[in-house]
């Protein structure tokens, strides 16, 4: 069961179908510490957050199956830093960017303050919560800003990946230590994921041969033209999933507009 999930699809009304077809996309059902799901609607990022958690077992299709989006991030919280507030509930958003992460940064509050002190003021001023993940998000936005890519449309995934690599390198320098980490960042035109010492997995498929949601008993429905990519934490346990990010070195995965998935080891980019 995953705590973080990225869903990127060529059709906007297939989240429920993919959730039903892919057992590997199931999220952790215990969401008592909080849960959030974000989606791109055009250039806007919309959020649904349950900061105080769900009393009943989480079913993504039930709480977000009505989303009409081909770009969705979901995260089940394990509250370690910060109260159970909307501001501390992932995913986070800034302009067209949507972000979710797992992991705790070294340094605690001092580390977060150090990150904030190096951000452009428009980013440090808009930090609303107390979590490491939000500080990391804004730190990476700062790296994009310095690269002139914060408001860029149609940014090549490889360029976005390289900007994030620079941001992560400066993160390690600032904090003086490297912590296990997994993150997904999307601007609505695909995604870039990074993970180190955190087992992650990805999947890309074309079509659903017999959609469990849309098929009747006598009339199977296939979504042949649907293309989708899924990114999640955990070891692959289902056919089609591929592992990434479990090494200390760290690795990137990019999902482009065509829903092609590419991997790159961080050491190869430095």
């Amino acid at each position, binding site marked *: 069961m995953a705590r973080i999930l990225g869903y990127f699809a060529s059709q906007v009304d297939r989240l429920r179908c993919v959730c039903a077809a892919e057992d590997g996309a199931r999220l952790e059902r215990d969401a008592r510490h909080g849960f959030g799901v974000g989606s791109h609607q055009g250039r806007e990022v919309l959020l649904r957050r349950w900061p105080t958690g769900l009393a009943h077992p989480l079913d993504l299709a039930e709480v977000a199956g*009505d989303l009409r989006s081909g770009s969705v991030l979901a995260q089940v919280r394990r509250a370690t830093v910060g109260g159970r507030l909307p501001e501390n509930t992932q995913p986070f958003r800034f302009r067209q960017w949507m972000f979710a992460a797992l992991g705790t940064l070294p340094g605690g509050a001092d580390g977060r303050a150090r990150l904030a002190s190096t951000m452009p003021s428009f980013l440090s001023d808009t930090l609303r919560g107390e979590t490491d993940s939000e500080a990391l998000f804004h730190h990476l936005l700062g790296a994009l800003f310095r690269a002139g890519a914060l408001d860029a449309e149609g940014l090549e995934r490889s360029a976005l990946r390289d900007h994030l690599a620079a941001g992560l390198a400066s993160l390690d320098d600032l904090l003086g230590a490297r912590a296990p980490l997994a993150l997904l960042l999307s601007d609505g035109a695909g995604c870039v994921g990074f993970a180190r010492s955190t087992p992650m997995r990805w999947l890309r498929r074309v079509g659903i041969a017999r959609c469990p949601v849309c098929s009747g008993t006598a009339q199977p429905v296939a979504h042949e033209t649907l293309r989708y990519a899924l990114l999640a934490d955990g070891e692959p346990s289902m056919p089609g999933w591929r592992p990434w990010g479990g090494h200390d070195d760290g690795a990137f995965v990019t999902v482009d507009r065509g829903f092609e998935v590419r991997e790159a080891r961080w050491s190869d980019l430095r």
Partner: protein
Amino acid sequence: MALALAGCSAARPLPATWLPPADLPAPTRSEGSVTIDAPEPGRVAVESLVVALRGAIGARDAGALRGLLAPVLGGIDRPAFAMSREAWLQHLDALHAGADALDAMPALTAHAQCAPRCRPGVLLEPGEWLVAWPRGAGVARPRGAPTDRVVPWMLRVSVRDGVAVVTGLDDDIVAALGPRPAVSGGARP
């Protein structure tokens, strides 16, 4: 009925006194011996706006919705009315999560229907309409919607030259029961 929307500071109960009486006769006029419906001036324009709003909400079309609510969302030409981006996004979050609840036709109340009890100059002014979805806060939270959200459900609309323009969203309508706020939405940048 209490109205509370995350990110909005004003969340006081609305007094019932401004609501139109339930037995208010439908507006009519007589032509000879025939009595026919005579919509208040501006009703057609307001209904057209509501149809467009419902279409945008139903389609989850953030761009279209932004266009329809532009007068209260502000912009470079009306900075004093600018709702913060975060406040707008929180409205959008709630509208999106509650789209099904907003599928019903809202009640339209003209200034003339509630005057003088609608407190002209504070809540509704001549030429203004209140568009209120029938479900109030607490009822309008749809299944599956986050617990920290309720659906925005009131708009103040002004008809000028036959065109209906949104001039207020639920939070600043509630706030209008006190001093009229200078800025709609939250105070964050």
